[in-house]
């Protein structure tokens, strides 16, 4: 069983839509959860991270962790064409375990 599984997508949404990206993980011991954004031909860059359960908001982005169901989500409000990228969820132990990524395209 993989440490983290991610809804594969791809997703294509109109500009201004709300986007929901989701992952599940297997080990309840993990406590640090991250979302990375990866533009084409670039390395991943950290978008947000959360510790334990709950929500964390940063501008148009909200990261949510539900430890009881081992579910992590990233919501993007008022999506913009510049948000078009691959989004990777990750959980942190001594190393980082990544999901397979969800490709998002926001259409103007």
């Amino acid at each position, binding site marked *: 069983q993989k440490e983290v599984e*991610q809804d594969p997508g791809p997703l294509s949404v109109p500009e201004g839509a709300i986007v929901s990206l989701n992952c599940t993980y297997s080990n309840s011991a993990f*406590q*640090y959860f991250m979302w*990375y954004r990866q533009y084409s*031909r*670039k*390395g*991943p*860059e*950290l978008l947000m*991270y959360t*510790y334990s359960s709950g929500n964390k908001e940063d501008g148009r982005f909200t990261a949510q962790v539900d430890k009881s169901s081992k579910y992590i989500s990233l919501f993007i409000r008022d999506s913009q064409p510049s948000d078009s990228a691959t989004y*990777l969820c*990750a959980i*942190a*132990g*001594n*190393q*980082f375990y*990544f*999901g*397979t*990524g969800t490709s998002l395209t926001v259409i103007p």
Partner: protein
Amino acid sequence: EAGVAQSPRYKIIEKRQSVAFWCNPISGHATLYWYQQILGQGPKLLIQFQNNGVVDDSQLPKDRFSAERLKGVDSTLKIQPAKLEDSAVYLCASRRDGGKLNTEAFFGQGTRLTVV
């Protein structure tokens, strides 16, 4: 602060040839990772260093892959001989304090390897 530097950005080699990638982490970062990212997949850890010691190389195909981090700074990853399935992006990442799990890992741009 300067980011993680990797070179080369792109490399095309024939199968059975050898290739080496170089990584210069962010200054002062003790932990260095090499990840392999195959197209359409998430990054997979190959090897993790803390300073110049190996912490985890359980997923490194040691019959063909090797890595070193001399002096606990720069690192090189080598493949010899390369196979077609090694075609991927090789990402280097560094982290300030390996003992604190909530510190961000910074990624380089990656080296895109194509084996033909």
